[in-house]
């Protein structure tokens, strides 16, 4: 997989480059600001990009805005946004109705290398990856009552919102695939959602339900 990295901290930029290279990916270019990043994406047409939200010159959300540009102009490129803090509002702006090929994770998650690489692959393949903390915020701010769900179903809903596949959910909760499917069907019934067969359609339904769609 060919990756372009946008990150202003040299320490993290080097770390990410080494991590991706060691995992067998190719880091096509690295950039320290949004402008250089967009030029690099245009030049190298990577499979995925990893972008930090806060970058020079204003250190507010230029990374996020650059990510949105990439989403609109190069829809095939997977966009993984990393941040020191994750915010439900930024996630909403990033997804804005199309949770395809986007991810939004805390920088801390890079520490769990395997999971991070898995998320990046998912995003590059057109799936989605939302940080559990963002999902917690989405659930906390949900406009709909989630009180009817059992605690287990809430867990499953959260993992679905993170963009996980049925198999991954089954692994995380240490249950069988059949049990996960049963939970998912219950959730869709209780929340009045049309059941989706494909992973990303399901994510879309969940996110729309939670109020980001």
């Amino acid at each position, binding site marked *: 997989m060919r990756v372009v990295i946008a990150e202003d901290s040299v320490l993290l930029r080097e770390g990410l480059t080494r991590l991706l290279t060691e995992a067998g990916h190719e880091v096509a270019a690295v950039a320290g600001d949004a402008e250089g990043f967009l030029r690099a994406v245009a030049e190298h047409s990577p499979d995925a990009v990893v972008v930090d939200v806060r970058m020079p010159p204003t250190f507010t959300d230029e990374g996020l805005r650059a990510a949105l540009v990439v989403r609109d102009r190069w829809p095939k490129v997977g966009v993984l946004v990393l941040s020191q803090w994750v915010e439900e509002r930024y996630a909403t702006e990033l997804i804005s109705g199309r949770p395809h090929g986007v991810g939004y994770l805390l920088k801390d998650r890079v*520490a769990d290398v395997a999971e991070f690489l898995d998320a990046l692959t998912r995003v590059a393949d057109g799936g989605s990856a939302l940080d559990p903390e963002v999902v917690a*915020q989405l659930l906390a701010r949900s406009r709909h009552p989630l009180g009817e769900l059992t605690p287990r179903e809430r867990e499953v809903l959260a993992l679905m919102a993170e963009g996980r596949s049925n198999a991954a959910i089954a692994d995380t909760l240490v249950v069988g695939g059949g049990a996960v499917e049963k939970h998912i069907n219950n959730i869709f019934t209780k929340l009045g959602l049309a059941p989706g067969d494909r992973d990303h359609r399901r994510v879309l339904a969940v996110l729309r339900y939670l109020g980001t769609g």
Partner: protein
Amino acid sequence: MFLLRDLVSARTWLAMTQHLTGLIIGFVAIFIVTFGLGFGFGGLFFALAGLPLLGVMLRLAEWFAREERARFALFTGEHIPAWPAPGTDGRPGYRWGIIPRWRTWTEGATWAELCYALLRLPVSAIAASISIMAWAVGLLLVLLPVYGPSLPNGGPTFGDTVLHTRHDLVISVVIGTVVIFAAPQLTRGLAIADGALARLFLGPRRDLAARVIELETSRERVVDAAEAERRRIERDLHDGAQQRLVALAMELGRAKAKFADDLDAARELVDQAHTQAKEALTELRNLVRGVHPPVLTDRGLDAALSGLAALCPVPVDVHVDVPVRPKSSVEAVAYFMVAEALTNVAKHSRASHAKVVVEGHGYPGTLTVMISDDGIGGADVNSPGLSGLADRVSGVDGRLSVESPVGGPTIIAAELPCG
């Protein structure tokens, strides 16, 4: 004894000097002001020639007010605080130093100073004549036995009566002594009354003075609250993230030593270090979340409160309806308030549900913030957290109310002016 001492005390004679100097100064002042007002306003009708004249007169009146404050401080010890001087907001009250600006005319202080300049002469004249009369009458009465016999009729004459008997003289001396002893009190009393009058005209308005005192105390409390907050952050950093990083470094050090002989143990230690590092990160993030997260600046209260709601172990309903973003200091206080209240909900309330409502009313208007829970109540208003909150709210001129009867529910509400 004190009556005798007062006869020669410095305060008495300073008060007398005060009346006499007031007489001279008042004479000059009334001349300048009547001349200035008359010719100045008169001059306005012929082109604008009167304007500089009025300017000079006003500046003299200002200077006169300053001089009067100094004179009262010198002679009576009365310190009259000045009005906020025109021009302290960066713009002088006069164009080219001489043409008064419109706002100089509309300022209360200008007219108070002019009135005072006009009143100075009559007031001083009354005070000085009463004081001098008291001394003179007293002395005349006391000294009657000395000079009385040498008067043409053998004593002072009132119509047909001539005071010359021993009985008359004794009464005269007694009354004279009383008057002389009363004279210093009278002189000083008049000086004090004079001071009160000057304070009325030259001092700041009373409501303004009260507001200054209120602001001084609230500023002090805000500074204290900020200091306490800094100490809390320092403590949190020290007890939390720093300790975790120390433990992490130690575990990595031990792992390094184990690599040579015990690879399994080393792997386990690295595993623990990994966990420690991630926990330190989470702790740092939550610490910042409780202070001022970047999203508050970038996207406002509504977006920022999601993070707090998700962090709270008790389910929280958040309703935000703020059509216009208030200024950042108000947003920060509202955010801090919700953070503090939700921390209390999590720590002490034993609530099963909490609710946060933030609403903006009007423009610039007010922001109302309310946090309620269905817990056990009994929150202590004097606890460091809640009193710090009250200080922060008063820092932006807001009002905080805490209702927390034992048995619950707890409602913390604030009204924050946004203008």
